[in-house]
Every structure is written in C-alpha cells, then in structure tokens.
C-alpha cells in the first residue's frame, strides 16, 4: 500500500464528512429519523400513509444538490468509467444488498457507528472488506 498524495484531499474530506454528520444530526434531532439513504429510499417501495413525505423530502434534497451547485456557478460533472453492464450489475447488488443487510454507508457506516451499534460495526466491516476484495479482483486480477 502506498498513499497517493496527489489525489488525497484530507481537508475537504474531513469538512465534507462533518457536513454529512451534521445532516444526520439534523435529521435525527429534528425529524427523529436515521439518515440511512437505502432505508429511506427502500421504505418508498412499500409506501404506508403518513410515511412518504419526509422520505421524499430528504431524497429530493440530495437530488437537487447538483442544481444548487450549478446555480452557485459550480456545475458538477461526474466522470463514471464503469460500462453499462457493470453499472447494472453493481446497482442490482447495491439495491438488494443494502435492503437485505438493512443499511448502507450512511445508515450503518455513519449513523450506526456513531451510536456504536454492534450490528452496524459488523455490517460496515463486511461491506468494506467486500469492497476492498472486489476492487482488488476487478483492477488487479481481471485488469479491467
């Protein structure tokens, strides 16, 4: 392992991270909800009355962020190298896996670890390990 200092962005990473934690704090202490994206989104697939609005509002907030950056004169373009087949496979796995495992990087990784939930510690360790292993296979064994 060697750290690539040309791409490592410690301050924006730390600052952006604090903003993510702050968003989770607002959602928890004002709305009484856990800011777990996969859970908030997945709950819309089995909608219950009175349970839809807050979910949509939170997700729309994420969705309009690039628009706000554009209005502020900083349009965001996201280069994605994966091909369509890889994106479809990855999307299916992320959708199924996060629902089966009850959370993703936000729900388990940020909120769960913040409250020292043993389930979330296990989940985060596992999806990180699986992510490391998969990236190794894809980049270094398959050479894609």
């Amino acid at each position, binding site marked *: 392992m060697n750290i690539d200092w040309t791409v490592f962005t410690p301050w924006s990473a730390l600052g952006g991270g604090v*903003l993510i*934690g702050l968003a*989770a704090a607002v959602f928890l202490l004002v709305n009484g909800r856990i800011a777990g994206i996969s859970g908030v989104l997945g709950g819309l697939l089995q909608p219950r009355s009175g349970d839809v609005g807050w979910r949509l509002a939170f997700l*729309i907030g*994420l969705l309009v962020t690039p628009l706000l950056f554009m209005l502020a004169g900083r349009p965001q373009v996201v*280069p994605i190298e994966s091909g369509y087949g890889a994106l479809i496979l*990855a999307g299916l796995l*992320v959708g199924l896996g996060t*629902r089966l495992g009850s959370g993703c990087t936000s729900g388990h990784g940020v909120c769960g670890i913040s409250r020292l939930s043993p389930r979330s510690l296990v989940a985060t360790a596992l999806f990180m390990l699986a992510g490391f292993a998969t990236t190794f296979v894809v980049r270094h064994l398959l050479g894609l």
Partner: protein
Amino acid sequence: MPLFTALLAGVIFGVGLVVSGMIFPAKVLGFLDLAGHWDPSLGLVMVGAIAAGSIAFAIARKRPRSALGFEIKLPTNRQIDARLVVGSLLFGVGWGIAGLCPGPALVDLGTGQLKPAVFFVALLLGMGLFEWLNRRLRA
C-alpha cells in the same frame, strides 16, 4: 415544517458528499483499491461524519422526542444474523464494482447524466428484488 427540515437535511448531506468528493466513483474506488495508489480520503470522510454524528446520538439518547416533537426512532434489532452478513457482503461487492453507494448515486442522478440514471434504475430493481425475496422468505 418537518418536510422542510427533511429537505434541508438532504441538501446538507448532498453538499457534504460533493465537498468530500464522494460523489466521484473514482475517489471511492481510490480508497477501496488498497493495492494501487491508495487515496485515504473516504476514511477521513467517515471520521468527520462519525465525530459529528456521535454528538447527535449522545444527545438523542437522553431525549425521547425530537425538536419538532417526533419520537426519535432508533433501530431495536440487535441480532447479527445471516441477512445482515449476506446483505452487507453483496452490497460491498456492488460498491467495489462501480464505486457507487445509494447517497452519492442520488446526487449523481441529479446531475442529469445517463450513467447514474442506469445505475439508479438497477438499484431500484435490486431493492424490488429484495421486497419479492422478503415476501417469499416470510411465506
């Protein structure tokens, strides 16, 4: 009011993802690729988010109600079961293939590009597959 604060939380979350660079799959994969030129940024994003989040959850522990008077709903399931393990592993494999997880995928969808839309539709199908499996496992 709760809809406005939920929207606000979503926007702050989204800005955090943009600022931290986590909307870029290349940056996420740079963290997951330990054997390549490693980019530790994602680790520091977690440190910052958990530092702020820990304070919030410590406060929440002492107050059963939110500022708007809602019950603060914390997960009650404490079982480390096969679903948690298999689900987390599947998610990690998908995350390692494209470098996208649900939050950044939503922000990327908002840029109006085609590739995030394809990923997002597949993600919804995956979640739908879970709902179908879940009914079969329960039946």
